[in-house]
């Protein structure tokens, strides 16, 4: 077998994590992107900056704060305990919550750009054609922003696959639960298993390349829509 059982397990976990995070961010990121694209509120700048923070923040800083927040004495930790969910750190769902924050800008920014690119006109046209604002959002704004959503989905998925620092802070290294591919490679290197590290790293490299290739090959067709 090319990859070991634990390697495959880590890849499967990584894909599951990235998939769940991408789905959640479609739901969470879309209204944020819409609001940022349409608002004239003075809060646009501050909120936009907060969304963009994970782009520049060291993952360990973000992970540290999330660890504290989700820990036994943190507000989120107390909430999850009160709800009988236990504590999130060192669980798969802890990773999901952390990754949602970590990958937020990769969803929000392309979605926001796509909504901004639509402009006011199609929305005004829809209003003159009797469509309510909610109706307009689903029947005009979303279809017209579809290319931006595909870009956002691919970027979010790929970025979550590639995360390491936040995972290490929040999830640690539990096989099948929080040991994603990037952590598994780190383990191989630590254990001087360079052959295993090479194989898994190559899989990640090829995967990342293919994702970006798909994005770039597909992009020119956006102009015709």
């Amino acid at each position: 077998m090319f990859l070991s059982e634990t390697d495959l397990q880590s890849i499967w976990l990584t894909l599951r994590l990235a998939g769940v995070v991408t789905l959640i961010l479609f739901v969470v990121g879309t209204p944020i992107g819409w609001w940022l694209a349409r608002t004239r509120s003075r809060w646009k700048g501050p909120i936009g900056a907060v969304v963009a923070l994970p782009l520049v923040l060291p993952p360990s800083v973000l992970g540290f704060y999330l660890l504290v927040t989700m820990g036994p004495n943190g507000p989120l930790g107390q909430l999850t305990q009160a709800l009988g969910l236990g504590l999130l750190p060192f669980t798969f769902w802890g990773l999901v919550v952390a990754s949602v924050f970590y990958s937020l800008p990769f969803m929000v920014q392309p979605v926001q750009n796509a909504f901004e690119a639509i402009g006011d006109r199609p929305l005004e046209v829809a209003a003159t054609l009797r469509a309510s604002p909610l109706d307009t959002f689903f029947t005009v704004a979303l279809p017209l922003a579809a290319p931006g959503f595909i870009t956002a989905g691919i970027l979010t998925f790929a970025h979550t696959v590639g995360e390491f620092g936040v995972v290490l802070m929040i999830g640690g290294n539990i096989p099948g639960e929080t040991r994603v591919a990037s952590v598994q490679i780190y383990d191989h290197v630590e254990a001087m298993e360079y052959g295993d590290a090479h194989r898994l790293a190559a899989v990640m490299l090829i995967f990342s390349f293919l994702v970006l290739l798909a994005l770039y090959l597909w992009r020119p067709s956006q102009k015709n829509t």
Partner: protein
Amino acid sequence: MESINARFDIDWPGFSLAVDLELPGRGVTGLFGHSGSGKTTLLRCIAGLVRAPKGRLVFRGEVWQDESNWVPTHRRSLGYVFQEASLFPHLTVMGNLRYGQKRAPAPVAAEDRVSLDQAIALLGIEHLLTRKPERLSGGERQRVAIARALAVSPRVLLMDEPLAALDIARKREILPYLERLHDQLAIPVLYVSHAPDEVARLADHLVVMDGGRVLASGPLKETLARLDLPTAFSEDAGVVIDAVVASHDDNYHLSRLDFPGGNVVVAQRHESIGHPLRLRIHARDVSLALERATGTSIANLLPATVAEIADADTPGHCLVRLDAGGTPLIARITRRSLDQLGVARGKAMWAQIKAVALLGD
């Protein structure tokens, strides 16, 4: 109850709008003015796309806006045609037409109803229905946009310079369809334009705007014959006359067009006798003579009485309004000619018409 009453006050940095208008509830009303005159903003206020803070809008007895009421755009029974066709690119032509049609409540009055088929036929777009907007020409797109606005069976059609983004050939393609709307639809149309020819051709009522103010509002022919609006029209000043084809001269290939108080002869028309035609006579194409000129190639000479004299757009010229047997004419002559001919109110003179523009060509 049938009229449209609009009062808006907007005070934005660098732009203000202050209008208080009563517009007729039928026919085509032209909102005319230069860019920046506020005509488009006025239309957007009527549509509810712009909310003027202190506004009042009563549409045929229905309050659309006052201090305590605000009907959002999607609940106003209107059709809107933007300068660019703005078709939804993700839908076919039929999808675009059906978008508004299936959301609009059925109109109460049967005479106001425009069926989808009727809109398609009026704009001649039967052959385009399955296409995507990207596969249409500019003129076709705008025709689809007009049909889309009509398909909601609006109680008023608002058009914001629907021809301004098109070249002359495309304009010629669309104008006949706009005339058909005028002739065949009962609903009022508010038509924004900065092109005097379009307004003269299509409108029944004219609102002249400048700097966010209304300079004049009245029936088209009367308003065009006013001499106190030269800043708006400058060298396009002129009158519009509704005439009928009276006779054809096959020998010289000419047609005579009659109107109250006179007639003009023009190059032969294909219309049959009795057919109505709208003429435009520019002030710059009318000169004055004390007597009926002989030995001139100008065919159209009309006896007329001087009714009013006013300044033109240049200090060397003035505008003279004439009464040709009930039909007003405007002549643009030099101030020197005015003095040399002794033009004065009440003086009987001959108007020499060098050119007649037939609206509809």
